[in-house]
């Protein structure tokens, strides 16, 4: 038996009684039906707004925001949508364009239920056809592996919609953006940090040297040190490999290593076209040394970076995320100030998702996700406490810290502070929100959250102890302000301070002291001993 339905109108009205028919009819005309492209779902509701990527529907459940790219709209109130495939270019660092973005576009197409087909490949250029869930061409994307500098220039010259760079834009480039009416590339709307990376000094596996200081590295690249014996190796000539001066890797290397040492890279070093080619050349040269990206180190040996106080830090995803590895760098994407193509906007939103960050990680770069490391893997912490002679530390203090950190894992989120200050900066505020979100979706049970403050060695030990506790408490208050439900019995939040006793970098340098002024985030098991 099938029955005819009575006249129906939007549920927003249906919930009330005594609504006049004429009003209902008028609003019913605003109803739209949204059909998902996979044919699995049909939505209906009063169209409240549409901004090009989201439909807002008034429904029986309240306002719903529907991803406009996953549905088609039926009804008189539907906006007119241009379904012509967009065409845009992404240009920049060869390693990032070929090694990350081609895979990112594939992952993005899978995420939206479509496909990404390479339709053309020649030289440095790859053309990809992006299909949506209904197998319609949504965009034609040209990937141009032309280097960071050219990628940025291409956005300024309107030849690309997105620049992928292993370095931040220079002042001159920012000025060029402004001169071309392309806005401010350093603004939040135009600049995206999508991954982290590190510059690593590499040698052949047969080279006995295990670590090198930043100062020695600068002297080697400047041509002042030319024999391995001067940096702890055999008596033999050093063959130095580097990238072109305008490559992102060279620019960052100059910024982080050469300029602080007041030196310039020698003109006589051996140049390679790409980071990967550099790693290959060094790996096969027992006397070679070079600096490349962590992601491109390949078969070469990665040297630890040794500070002036003797602390050695390895480049690992964790030390890079915590910014304790001194040669870390961020990877950037830049757009101009015009409205980006819709599919590019979606791709940039996708960059923030775990699926996209997994692609970044698979490519050898460091993703932006929060990771944890057990206390057992924190050997550097104890080594550094003993190695450094400028910190006031006693064995009972170390014992107390060790007891606190037993059965605990450290998060890669680390809050840092200006000298003598306990005020959180803008990045720290972002990290507070990230931490609160992580806790809200992590099913943490039988744990407690420890916020542990540390200082540099400037000043009196007792004062530093108080300052470290004050910083930890500041973070605790900020966290509770964002997530008031935290701190309950489910997850107690404790603020501790250990002063200057656990440096992770040398206090002799500005950067080392900055690294040491921190509040670490630990998750500790709530241990109940059996009787």
């Amino acid at each position, binding site marked *: *038996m099938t029955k005819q339905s009575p006249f129906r109108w939007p*549920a927003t009205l249906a919930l009330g009684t005594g609504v006049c028919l004429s009003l209902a009819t008028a609003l019913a005309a605003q109803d739209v039906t949204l059909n998902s492209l996979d044919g699995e779902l049909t939505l209906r509701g009063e169209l409240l707004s549409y901004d090009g990527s989201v439909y807002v529907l008034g429904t*029986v459940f309240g306002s719903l925001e529907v991803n406009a790219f996953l549905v088609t709209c039926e009804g008189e109130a539907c906006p007119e949508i241009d379904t012509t495939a967009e065409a845009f270019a992404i240009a920049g660092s060869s390693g990032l364009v070929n090694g990350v973005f081609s895979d990112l576009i594939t992952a993005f197409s899978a995420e939206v239920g479509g496909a990404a087909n390479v339709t053309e490949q020649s030289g440095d250029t790859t053309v990809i056809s992006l299909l949506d869930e209904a197998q319609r061409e949504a965009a034609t994307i040209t990937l141009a592996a032309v280097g960071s500098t050219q990628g940025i220039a291409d956005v300024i010259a309107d030849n690309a919609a997105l620049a992928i760079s292993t370095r931040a834009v220079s002042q001159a480039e920012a000025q060029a953006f402004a001169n071309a009416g392309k806005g401010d590339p350093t603004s939040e709307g135009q600049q995206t940090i999508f991954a982290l990376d590190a510059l690593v000094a590499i040698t052949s596996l047969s080279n006995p040297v295990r670590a090198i200081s930043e100062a020695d590295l600068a002297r080697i690249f400047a041509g002042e040190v030319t024999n391995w014996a001067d940096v702890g190796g055999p008596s033999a000539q050093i063959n130095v490999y580097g990238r072109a001066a305008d490559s992102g890797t060279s620019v960052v290397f100059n910024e982080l290593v050469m300029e602080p040492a007041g030196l310039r890279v020698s003109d006589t070093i051996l140049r390679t076209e790409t980071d990967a080619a550099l790693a290959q050349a060094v790996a096969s040269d027992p006397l070679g040394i070079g600096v490349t990206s962590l992601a491109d180190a390949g078969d070469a040996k990665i040297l630890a970076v040794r500070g002036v106080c003797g602390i050695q830090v390895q480049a690992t995803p964790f030390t890079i995320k915590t910014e304790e590895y001194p040669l870390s760098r961020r990877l950037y994407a830049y757009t101009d100030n015009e409205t980006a193509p819709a599919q590019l906007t979606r791709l940039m939103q996708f960059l923030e998702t775990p699926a996209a960050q997994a692609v970044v990680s698979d490519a050898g770069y460091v993703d932006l996700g929060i990771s944890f490391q057990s206390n057992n893997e924190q050997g550097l912490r104890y080594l550094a406490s003993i190695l450094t002679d400028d910190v006031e530390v006693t064995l009972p203090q170390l014992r107390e810290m060790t007891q606190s950190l037993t059965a605990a894992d450290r998060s890669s989120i680390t809050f840092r502070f200006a000298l003598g200050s306990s005020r959180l900066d803008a990045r720290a505020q972002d990290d507070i929100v990230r931490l609160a979100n992580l806790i*809200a979706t992590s*099913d943490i049970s039988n744990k407690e959250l420890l916020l542990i403050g540390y200082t540099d060695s400037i000043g009196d030990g007792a004062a530093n102890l108080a300052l470290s506790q004050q910083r930890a408490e500041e973070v605790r208050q900020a966290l509770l302000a964002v997530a008031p439900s935290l701190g309950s019995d489910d997850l107690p939040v404790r603020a501790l301070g250990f002063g200057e006793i656990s440096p992770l970098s040398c206090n002799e340098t500005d950067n080392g002291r900055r690294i040491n002024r921190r509040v670490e985030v630990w998750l500790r098991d709530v241990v109940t001993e059996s009787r």
Partner: protein
Amino acid sequence: MNKNLIAAGAIWVAIMNPAAAQQGEFSDAVNLWLSGDDANGLPALATDARNGDTAAQLILGQVDRDTIPGGYSDFLLGLTREERAQLLRFVNSDGSTVNWLLTLQGTENAALGDALFWYEANLDPIDSASDLQAVDEISKAEWILWRTLNNGFFNLIQALPTDNPELAQVGFMTWITGYFASENRTVSLSSFLADESPEKVPGLLALKRLERVLGLQGNFSVGLNELIEVIRGRGNRLPVTADLVTLDASLTRLGEVDPRVGVVNRMCDICPDSAADYQCKIQTFEIIGGYETLLAVRSPAEAAVSSDAYLASDRAVTSLVNLVRGRAPSDLTRVRSTCLQSLITDGQ
């Protein structure tokens, strides 16, 4: 079957029917049936039905047309078609039989019988839900709305008729409305377990149906997503890192709030070593096909047995056991739970 002919044949029975079913206090026959005893309960109900007991008529009518409340019990499976008809249906003077629900034509329970008999056959689910809600068969009305949404027809839910606004207030819909009204849309396993709403499970499952187009991915914790997989009957697809002991404990807690999940817990509690068998509840969902099937374990007619009374009865557990036995893999080595193995074996 032609409704008019059925109605004409049932006039005599209609005269015999009392006005309404008793609520709260059940007859001995209903109690016997609610205890899970088909062999004695169904004949006793048949006697009461012939004597004009509406509750017995409603139950038998539903058992006859909807196997879930009766399940595929050994007793019913052992009957011939004729024996089954004689037991469960009204027998006309010419020996033909009629479903008891159709004998209510011409009585004040006609709308109730009509709604109960035809709701699965009506091609317009909202009409069915509306008809059921009008005769206070709320759990069935909710089931239809839930199934409609889960089949992807949100548009039909949106087009609820204006003459029945209460339909928009059924449990799971209220839960979803509350979710969208909340500023905090992240849900962790612990916050979900702490939620006291008995309709949170169907609400969450319906919400997950909308997850993709509404961009809600990432709002649910890993542990909660694993629990959802279990409830959907996909426990065998969990990653190897899944904490099965916590998931089992989570189902126990859910059962304290959601009486349907509580039926699963009570079934697994039959086994003496249930505390150590953390796979029982998880695999029960897997075998029966998830919470959707569990929603079908419900009172045959709330006018005869309230939803809560039915779910609290042994009948509900018996029905679930019958479902598990009927849907279990023939190769018992694929059944990971020792409790389920023994329950299935006992029925063979």
